[in-house]
């Protein structure tokens, strides 16, 4: 049975600068992802991995090509429409956790949902608690980021990425700042969530060990997909 396609980009290009200083960072990217898929995005530094994730996450517009997700033409959507789409359908995990220092672990997990709704609700609180339980941090829910280890912070960041039940989670080097043990713990978690919650993951990494745990490899070289 064919899984439902959630993401489709064709002929996608991204240029920075103009004239003589113009740089072609992404060149003719064609990519599709299915629901529940877990893919690794590999490539050397400067190959365009982060730029591709940023564009797929609607944080930046491509210079050309098409970009559709769940049937929505994100290439031509307004900034407000892209922001709303992002808050409802996309989750992010970054190399650095980027938790808000003034909020507790529980409040950080609720943050994306609260931003969209304009308030924190009991439902959000329950869902955030569930997610913290799932990432093994139920005893840290009232701790602020400064009182947690690097691995714990990144697990909170994973839980935060899932609060809105995103269709696709974009993870940019999510284990890049962690030791091997913590990295494995985070990858176990991502794998479990992918299996149980059905969210798709696109994980940018240099690490073959991490890539080996994904179902699919997408390799970028000099701005082009050379293997998908």
């Amino acid at each position, binding site marked *: 049975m064919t899984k439902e396609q959630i993401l489709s980009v064709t002929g996608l290009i991204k240029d920075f600068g103009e004239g003589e200083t113009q740089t072609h960072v992404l060149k003719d990217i064609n990519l599709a992802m299915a629901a529940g898929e877990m893919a690794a995005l590999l490539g050397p530094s400067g190959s365009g991995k*982060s730029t591709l*994730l*940023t564009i797929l*996450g609607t*944080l*930046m517009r491509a210079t050309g090509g098409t970009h559709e997700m769940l049937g929505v033409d994100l290439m031509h959507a307004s900034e*407000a429409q892209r*922001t*709303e789409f*992002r*808050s*409802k359908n996309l989750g*992010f995990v*970054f190399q*650095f956790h*980027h938790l*808000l*220092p*003034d*909020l507790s672990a529980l409040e950080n997990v609720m*943050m*994306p949902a*609260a*931003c*969209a*709704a*304009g*308030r*924190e609700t009991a439902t959000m609180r329950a869902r955030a608690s569930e997610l913290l339980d799932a990432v093994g941090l139920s005893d840290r829910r009232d701790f602020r980021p400064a009182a947690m280890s690097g691995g714990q912070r990144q697990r909170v960041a994973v839980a*935060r990425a899932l609060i*809105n039940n995103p269709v696709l989670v974009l993870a*940019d080097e999510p284990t890049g700042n962690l030791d091997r043990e913590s990295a494995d713990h985070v990858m176990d978690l991502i794998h479990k969530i992918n299996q149980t919650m059905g969210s798709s993951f696109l994980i940018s990494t240099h690490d073959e060990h991490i890539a080996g745990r994904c179902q699919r490899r997408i390799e970028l070289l000099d701005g082009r997909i050379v293997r998908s």
Partner: protein
Amino acid sequence: MNPYAVKLAMRHLLSHPGQTALLMAGVALGVSVFIFMSALIGGLATLLTLRTVGSIPHVVLEMPDRDPATLYMGPGAQVVLQKDLSRRGQITIWQPMIPIIEQSSGVIAVSPQIRGSAFVQRGQAVSPVGVIGTMPGKLSVIAEIDGAIVDGSSNLPADGILIGSVLARDLGLRVGQVVQLTSDRGRSRSFRIGGIFTLGIASADRQSIYMNFATARALFDLPTGISRIEIKVQPATDAAGIAERLRLSTGLKATAWTEDNQQLFEGLDAQARTGTIIKAFSLVTIIVGIASAMLLSIVRRQSEIGIMRAMGASRGLVISIYVLEGTLIGVVGAITGALAAWLALLPLPPVSAVTRGDLPIDRQQGDFLLAIALTTLAATLASILPARRAARIDPVEAIGA
């Protein structure tokens, strides 16, 4: 109001209590300066006005000057009746006017008076004086003579007079002594000094003599008419308008105190403008202080704002958070400053009780609510620009994605 924006704004402020307290203290100081200046400028104006108008009539009604009658006007010639300089301007039919004047809006006291010039003589010493004859019970309605008596009493029997303390000192006069008064109508009579007063106005203390209304009639040869009607109004600053109304209703010449005290008005106006400039500067200081603090906070929180934008926070939410932060700093700082100013001004005496060396501060004119409202508005305005800048932060750049 977005409850989540309120929560995050509060959390930002409470997460750095020292910095927040310092910022609010700066706002409070600006508000205190604003209120202090308002109370001082207002109090000074009240004091000067009280001192100036406290002992003078606010409106004076007199017979209008009449132009000499023209008997003939032809080509190359004009015949004009010479003015009779021996006739004084007097209000002959004045009794019916008094109730009309008393019932006029703003009028609080009316004193019909007989006035004239005279010489007071004690032995070889002679001095020109102005004599004021007042009706029974009306002695203190214009100048507070009762309260200004420094020797003797304010009773005015038919042969009694009250004299100013400077005149008494110049002529070596004391209560109980008898002096000779000769009016400009050539009538002369002896009077016993019943009291000596000090109004604090040099001209009055040197040249004024008060006497019984009936006695003044005889001394100045005015069997029925009166010289003028003196009036007090409330507020004193409305005197010009009330004078114009009384001129129209009585047909008399009406002169407001403001006509003779233009310099005071100009001084008060300049003083008020100076106060406004100082208050404006304190508001500008608040705006600059809050705006710069907000900008610094936004630079420090750039990556947090970026991550919130990446997680779906709208520009509106980001703007709300920072505008609320600025407004909260303004409101709390303003209320604290107003409270501090109120407490600091509490022990100061009211303007009416100010003595030499005291600051004439009127707490009632402190503009507390205006200061709080303007500061809150200023704080809100000061935070709009930084908030808009925060909303424009590119999440990709801010989080280094």
